[in-house]
């Protein structure tokens, strides 16, 4: 097929500060002094006029732990609010919420190496082959070592191609499938009763909850054959050790946290957690989305994942920082956008995030950001969000131009090192934040990133044992690492297997969650289910990946299965109109046999070509705030006839 004529937008680095003199006026070049003064003035003015909670910080899930520590400290100490969050909200916040509700800790429980030596790998809502390719190499090692791998995904992805069994469920029916698997495990007597008795609560209620989800009912709801569900249940439960991994296919739903709980239930039922080689593992989407949360750049936790509502934790930070911390949770990213709408949020400091393009229902996000009194954006590019700002501050690229650490999906804290000199007048995030803090009356000085890290270590027991020297020596260390002389365990929650109740600690609770189908229902007007995901060579809104010449990249398409393409009468490459209840975009057609009738696929890698998030729905998980990017209802119209074509079955 002929290559599409595309001129992808590439972004140039910001090399000097920009300010806007009046609302709707143009951005103009400014000196650092002027820009910093203007940034600080807006924060001060809004705090005086509207109180500390009129401020919010969007901290960067791609910057270092050290920067996230300083950003949340700025929020809590300088501004006096807990309104700090990051794009963790748009991806794995439900994983953190679900895991911490069950186990008291928001990290995946296993290590990559354990996947190589486990007996059974269940990839649920995860196309790791594309989205986490090097993690998938560990999965492939596991398969080569004899592990069985099963994949649950509406699409027959390149991950599913490696599976012994692919369960192609209908979008948004993960809970019925999980419950049916749980019911079958119990019915076949394959549950681990001694583990359940010893380490869990709520089993009897769970048993009642899943009782209606017979294999045949689950087949009707999920579209997966009963025999395949039964087979999965038996294979998972009878494995000696099993890993359950998930990605955004589980979390990006309006009930993402419930989905996570439904999966964790299966690990509790079978005792596949807290042992070497057996665990539950969310695969995180940004290099430091785990670390950002660990550093307290989330509205409900202080650094070290310590709960803000705990008086003891708060007292420790209050004495260390000489400040009073509000004894309540701040706003999540989702709350923040709603508060912008209602005018409660006036000033936002946005570091390295692009919510104008990454939020669901992007038109609405744009409108809300425009309503702010004061928006300061600190980034390496003039993103769509930066274009709306009153002050734009040029920063360094964390991974290549700063020193520090990041924390990966297996809780491994690793050193990041500066290799390049930043362009023009760009400065390190931490230095910029400290300058603004200085203008607002807080004289902060850290000699280097290590000094920030050592302050964090002194406040976070889970990180105390990780000195920079040890991180270097051991290729990173996994939390919890409380000792400076002992190596940490590679897996979490071994305590659940202790016979001594004291050492076993709080039992893990079964999540009593009900099926709740996607909010955006398909009907005769919007008959096709649209789901979204990543491609191998591109990343999120494409601001970074747009700049390298990937031979694999073909731009944005609406991908359909061959049957739908035929019944709609559309060809590969033909431009069509894609409409949802919120917006309309135009995109060319691609035909992918990995899709099934009634299921379409798009990415959000090319928002300047096709703004997929005009279609997605901002239906949010009430617990974690993540939007339902994975399930929109759309229809496809041929462009030249300008009329809806015959509806395909949904």
């Amino acid at each position: 097929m002929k290559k599409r004529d595309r001129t992808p937008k590439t972004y140039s680095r910001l090399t000097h500060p920009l300010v806007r003199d009046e609302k709707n006026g143009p951005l103009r070049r400014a000196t650092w002094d002027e820009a910093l003064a203007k940034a600080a003035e807006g924060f001060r003015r809004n705090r005086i006029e509207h109180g500390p909670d009129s401020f919010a910080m969007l901290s960067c899930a791609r910057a270092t732990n050290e920067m996230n520590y300083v950003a949340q400290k700025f929020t809590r100490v300088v501004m006096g609010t807990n309104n700090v969050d990051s794009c963790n909200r748009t991806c794995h916040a439900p994983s953190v919420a679900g895991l911490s509700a069950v186990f008291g800790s928001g990290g995946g429980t296993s290590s990559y190496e354990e996947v190589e030596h486990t007996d059974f790998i269940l990839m649920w809502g995860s196309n790791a082959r594309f989205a986490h390719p090097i993690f998938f190499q560990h999965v492939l090692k596991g398969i080569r070592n004899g592990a069985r791998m099963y994949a649950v995904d509406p699409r027959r992805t390149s991950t599913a191609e490696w599976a012994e069994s692919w369960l192609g469920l209908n979008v948004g029916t993960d809970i019925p499938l999980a419950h049916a698997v749980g019911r079958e495990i119990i019915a076949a007597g394959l549950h681990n009763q001694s583990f359940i008795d010893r380490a869990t609560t709520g089993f009897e209620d769970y048993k009642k909850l899943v009782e209606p989800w017979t294999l045949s009912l689950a087949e009707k709801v999920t579209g997966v054959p009963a025999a395949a569900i039964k087979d999965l249940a038996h294979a998972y439960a009878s494995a000696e050790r099993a890993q359950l991994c998930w990605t955004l296919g589980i979390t990006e739903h309006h009930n993402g946290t419930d989905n996570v709980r439904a999966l964790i239930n299966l690990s509790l039922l079978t005792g596949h957690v807290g042992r070497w080689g057996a665990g539950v593992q969310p695969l995180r989407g940004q290099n430091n989305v785990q670390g950002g949360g660990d550093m307290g750049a989330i509205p409900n936790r202080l650094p070290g994942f310590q709960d803000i509502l705990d008086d003891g934790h708060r007292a420790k930070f209050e004495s260390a920082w000489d400040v009073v911390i509000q004894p309540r949770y701040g706003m999540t990213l989702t709350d923040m956008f709603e508060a912008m709408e209602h005018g409660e949020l006036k000033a936002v400091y946005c570091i390295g995030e692009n919510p104008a393009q990454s939020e669901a229902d992007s038109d609405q996000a744009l409108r809300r950001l425009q309503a702010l009194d004061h928006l300061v954006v600190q980034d390496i590019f003039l993103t769509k969000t930066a274009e709306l700002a009153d002050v734009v501050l040029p920063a360094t690229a964390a991974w290549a131009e700063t020193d520090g650490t990041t924390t990966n999906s297996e809780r491994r804290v690793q050193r990041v090192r500066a290799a390049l000199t930043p362009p023009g007048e760009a400065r390190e995030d931490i230095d910029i934040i400290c300058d603004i803090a200085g203008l607002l009356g807080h004289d902060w000085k850290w000699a280097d990133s290590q000094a920030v890290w050592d302050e964090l270590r002194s406040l976070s027991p889970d990180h105390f044992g990780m000195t920079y020297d040890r991180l270097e020596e051991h290729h990173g260390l996994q939390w919890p690492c409380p000792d400076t002389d002992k190596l940490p365990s590679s897996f979490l929650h071994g305590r659940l297997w202790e016979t001594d109740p004291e050492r076993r600690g709080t039992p893990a609770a079964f999540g009593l969650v009900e099926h709740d189908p996607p909010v955006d229902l398909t009907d005769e007007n919007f008959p096709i289910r649209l789901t979204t995901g990543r491609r191998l060579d591109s990343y999120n809104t494409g601001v970074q990946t747009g700049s390298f010449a990937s031979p694999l990249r073909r731009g944005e398409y609406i991908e359909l299965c061959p049957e739908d393409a035929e019944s709609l009468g559309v060809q590969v490459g033909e431009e069509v109109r894609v409409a949802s209840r919120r917006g309309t975009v135009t995109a060319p057609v691609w035909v992918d046999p990995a899709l099934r009738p009634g299921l379409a696929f798009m990415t959000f890698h090319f928002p300047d070509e096709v703004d997929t998030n005009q279609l997605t729905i901002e239906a949010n998980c009430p617990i974690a705030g993540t939007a339902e990017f994975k399930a929109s209802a759309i229809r496809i119209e041929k462009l030249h006839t300008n009329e809806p074509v015959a509806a395909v079955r949904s």
Partner: protein
Amino acid sequence: MTAPAMPRNTSAVPLGLPRRLIEFTLDGQQVRVPEGSTILDACRAEGKDIPTLCEGDTLRPKNACRVCVVEVEGARTLAPACSRKAEAGMTVKTDTERARHSRKIVIELLASSVDLSTTPRVEEWIKQYDAKPDRFGPDAARLNEEPRVDNDLYVRDYDKCILCYKCVDACGDQWQNTFAISVVGRGFDARIAVEHDGPLTESACVYCGNCIEVCPTGALSFKSEFDMRAAGTWDESQQTETTTVCAYCGVGCNLTLHVQDNEIVKVTSPHDNPVTHGNLCIKGRFGYQHVQNRD
């Protein structure tokens, strides 16, 4: 059903049986190495410098190049040190006339038929073993084909290929499992190619560059390196290597950025890193340009 009782200490990680130390004679010295070590492992532990080409620290031995051969007492043929396991009581000599002669011939044959201009250390070995690649004359068989530049990320220059198969193994079942490249042809016609020997862009290649990572001769190289070499600006003495963490996705792959004049010119990954084992994906290996769009 009740599950089998768990052992008392469930936090223990299975380590396998402890590895015994075995003892053997290496160049007249008694040495002790953990069971399962190769002769090459033992040599390196003793600080002996044995030349290698097809050996890869992240790959299983292929025994293709024979440049690491040593003499094992009692054996009829020379043994490749990279794959032969050390055995208790064996006597190994690494620097006998026979071993040196064999290495010399291997170097002469490779250097006369292949462009080894970008192979690290080969000049040194030619001197060390007094190899004379020119003795086969100017008509020594060469592939004589132009480098294949069919995409913007990496270049295949098969004039530099010694058929060590490391790229095939890295692309295949040992790491990447993409199987885009393979050996085609037999005997003298054997060569590395993608399906139907077409351009990379029409192959199964996913541009992870894990083949470049293991290529010992520079037959596979970053286009950035290829272009800079062509322009005469490639200068490894002016390059720094800094290991950091990739910013795409949460897996946490370690990247070593090779920087010359404040530009990233190449990306590798430490082979002993527990996350990557030296492997990366297309984004980690090639997706760096955005930080240096500076105008």
